[in-house]
């Protein structure tokens, strides 16, 4: 029986909800905090921030990551910046405007109360990061500098060259280091969470594989926080790091947590195009480049002249033409789709025809090469190393690539999943970005969840009490560990003929072609059938070398790809069920005469959250209706 989910949004005016909720959350007294153990999985902005802050408050924190150290979580790769409604530029910014931009940017598919809280917390993030020594860019007068990002008409993005994610993550890492030194946080690097242990309906622990020895280990706690990032590598080629996976959240889904809006994926418009079949990933070129870069294609299809030989009159600056109010800084979903439209019409450039130009000639003329180099130098260097072409002289070639996933585990206002005691933060949850995330908002959400929301709501959960103590001797731990062990032994036992990468590549092609930038009923049905076939073949024909009790990267990947082969199907099912276009989810059947996404608010103004019903059983789709009381729901326009 399909359920209506309750997000437990506090009552009262929007602007007061979080303050009141903080006041109403029960507290744990300082001397009692060390008696509670909290497991945090992931050391990115959300996970590391939560672990460090919970440690700072005095809880006993166990923090896990798959990387060799907590300083390498994928937050590190974010380039452009972090949003905050400081209004330092006096251009009319405010908490309300950031809230409005984010809800509109998400195509009216996010939860008002969460987005408003995010917008309120954004300012404190900047203050906190400055206090921790994050070297944000500054003006000559010593104040913080800002730039613009897509989908907004103010400059509210704070940045540290093209390495904002790195600098914010190193801030988190330094806070974590302090707590590890102080003994409140115990860090477990090279540990992969492979399952969740639920006792009496509550999350009470995890099973990990020690990636150095292969040993399976059990950890018990009073609450579990998952902050393990998104699932873009389901497409195989994405801008994510090669170890990013859905395994933690997928295992939690299979233990009873609902998975919300799996089909909401962000295809970022400006990545370096795919070069060949050998590739392991795609490299992003920051959205900040669209502050000064102009996107264009030749007006005539099939025009293969060098860009310098194409005169101004024969170029189509398609974003400026279609969206004069926002120009090159339209949101990501709009820019990506517009690029695809041009390429599908035969106007794409480069060898493959799947690329458009991002041109800095005007910016260099206007600002000079030095200013452009100061703003984007590291990105230009990266581009040149990969493409062997100099973007100061020849326009960059770019094409959309999977980058971020707005979908994730369903959480209520407290970031608590449908399993009590299981909290989900950052990209791993679904809560703040609706059907499309605006640029520079992922870092904002990671920091807000990690530093501010998780510590408060987890304390509230612990303080309400009644949980009792559970140790790893509990039979549930033994049972789950056995299951995990059997699963990994089974992968090794197949001894088939095709590698893990072969299957991952095939899955990625299906996802990109049928569940990518444009989706339709027939394609999605084909995708579901094809993914099932691939999954069947995987467990009969995959070849995983080596042993379980050893350092074995192929085995790690084998487990992750097995999960992607299940998640991919759920994404296609969700996309099939959502008979509308919204944000990053574009159904070819649902568009306006101008080719823009057409929502169906009457039937789909809700979150879809899927419940696992057992392997081989159809999952059940539940809904959380979205109610807009403070914002007028309109057709999104950037014209």
């Amino acid at each position, binding site marked *: 029986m399909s359920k209506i989910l309750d997000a437990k949004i506090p009552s009262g005016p929007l602007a007061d909800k979080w303050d009141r909720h903080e006041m109403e959350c029960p507290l744990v007294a300082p001397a009692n905090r060390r008696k509670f153990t909290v497991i945090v999985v992931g050391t990115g902005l959300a996970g590391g921030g939560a672990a460090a802050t919970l440690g*700072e408050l005095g809880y006993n924190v166990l923090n896990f990551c798959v*990387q*060799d*150290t*907590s*300083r*390498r979580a*994928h937050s*590190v*790769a974010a380039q452009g910046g972090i949003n905050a409604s400081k209004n*330092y530029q006096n251009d009319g910014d405010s908490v309300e405007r950031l809230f409005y931009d984010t809800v509109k940017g998400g195509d009216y598919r996010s939860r008002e109360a969460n987005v408003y809280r995010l917008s309120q917390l954004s300012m*404190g993030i900047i*203050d*906190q*990061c*400055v*206090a*921790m*020594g994050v*070297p*944000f860019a*500054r*003006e*000559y007068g*010593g*104040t913080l500098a800002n730039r613009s990002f897509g989908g907004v008409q103010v400059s509210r993005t704070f940045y540290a060259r093209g390495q904002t*994610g*790195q*600098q914010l993550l*190193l801030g988190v*890492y*330094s*806070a974590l*280091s*302090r707590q*590890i*030194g102080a003994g409140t946080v115990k860090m477990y690097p090279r540990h992969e969470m492979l399952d969740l242990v639920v006792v009496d309906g509550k999350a009470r622990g995890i099973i990990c594989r020690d990636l150095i020895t292969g040993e399976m280990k059990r950890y018990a706690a009073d609450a579990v926080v998952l902050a393990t990032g998104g699932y873009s590598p389901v497409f195989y080629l994405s801008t994510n*790091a*090669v*170890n990013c996976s859905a395994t933690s959240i997928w295992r939690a889904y299979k233990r009873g947590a609902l998975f919300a809006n799996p089909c909401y994926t962000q295809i970022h418009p400006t990545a370096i195009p795919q*070069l*060949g079949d*050998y590739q*392991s*990933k795609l*490299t992003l070129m920051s959205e900040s480049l669209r502050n000064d870069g102009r996107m264009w294609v030749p007006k005539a299809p099939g025009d293969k002249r060098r860009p310098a030989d194409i005169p101004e009159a024969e170029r189509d600056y398609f974003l400026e033409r279609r969206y004069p109010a926002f120009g090159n800084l339209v949101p990501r979903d709009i820019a990506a789709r517009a690029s695809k439209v041009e390429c599908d019409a035969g106007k794409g450039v480069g060898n493959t025809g799947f690329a458009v130009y991002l041109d800095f000639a005007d910016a260099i003329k206007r600002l000079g090469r030095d200013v452009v180099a100061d703003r984007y130098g590291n990105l230009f*260097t*990266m581009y040149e190393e*990969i493409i062997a072409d100099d973007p100061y002289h020849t326009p960059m070639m770019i094409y959309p690539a999977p980058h971020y996933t707005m979908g994730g585990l369903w959480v209520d206002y407290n970031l608590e999943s449908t399993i009590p005691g299981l909290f989900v933060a950052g990209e791993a949850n679904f809560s703040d970005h609706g059907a499309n995330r605006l640029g520079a908002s992922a870092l904002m959400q990671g920091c807000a969840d990690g530093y501010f929301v998780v*510590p408060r709501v987890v304390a509230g959960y612990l303080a309400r009490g009644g949980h009792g103590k559970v140790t790893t001797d509990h039979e549930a731990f033994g049972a789950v560990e056995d299951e995990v062990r059997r699963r990994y032994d089974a992968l090794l036992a197949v001894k088939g*003929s095709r*590698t893990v*990468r072969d299957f991952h590549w095939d899955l990625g092609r299906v996802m990109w072609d049928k569940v990518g930038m444009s989706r339709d009923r027939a394609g999605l049905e084909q995708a579901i059938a094809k993914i099932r076939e691939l999954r069947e073949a995987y467990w009969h024909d995959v*070849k995983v*070398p*080596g042993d379980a009790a*050893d*350092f074995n*990267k*192929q085995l790690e990947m084998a487990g992750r790809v097995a999960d992607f082969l299940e998640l991919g199907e759920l994404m296609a099912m969700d996309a099939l069920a959502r008979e509308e276009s919204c944000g990053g989810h574009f159904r070819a059947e649902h568009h306006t005469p101008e080719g823009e996404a057409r929502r169906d608010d009457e039937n789909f103004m809700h979150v879809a959250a899927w419940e696992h019903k057992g392997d081989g059983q159809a999952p059940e789709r539940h809904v959380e209706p979205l109610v807009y009381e403070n914002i007028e729901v309109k057709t999104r326009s950037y014209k």
Partner: protein
Amino acid sequence: MSEMTIHLKIWRQARGDAKGRFVDYTVEKVLPEMSFLETLDLLNEKLTRQGQQPVEFDSDCREGICGTCGLVIKGTAHGPNPKTTTCEVRMRHFRDGETITVEPFRAGPFPILKDLVIDRTAFDRIQQQGGFVTANVGSAPDGNAVPIPKIDADKAMDAASCIGCGACVAACPNASASLFVGAKISQLSYLPQGGPERGRRALLMIGQMDREGFGDCSNHGECEAVCPKEISIENIARMRREFFKGALGGHDRKAATGD
């Protein structure tokens, strides 16, 4: 797009305490635009299909920012090209038929775990001694309350660009971690935040560096030459000044050592 054949001489070592050796491999159909790690991927696919053990190596972001990867390629940490990490090295820099030696970063404090994978947690333990500003969440003043001259913010940013890969240690004849430690101490010394703990920080971090078994700096400059993020050796000089200031300040010394 001419395909190349590349010969690789790769360090193989089953475990940290096992004896290692170089093993020769040949990879065909290598394209100039492939990355070095994608060439290793190709080799591993081949080895897996042949029922052999793939070569273990670490990598993650594959765009030069996470600091996970790190190999000594043709005798140089992160390969022959300056200002790049291992994952950014492209095959166009090598010739068809060339033989390339591939080793892990070697240093006493970076024990080998398997093949090309090393343990760099010594860096974390140094950071835990003082590589932070003590600023609890919730206690921060407005971000613009304390203006910071652009030049200082830029210098802090230069030093903060360190990705913690460990190439500086691998390249140093003394296996010194001075560039790594200097970068962090230097970054925080350019900023007003954390000022009160500057001396203590320097003493504690440098003390831990010594305890981990990293060697002293003798100004060879090899670290700066291989650093993919162009961290300047000036940071080591600055680290020394911070250390002396800390050592001369009785309070700092007491806070750091208890003496």
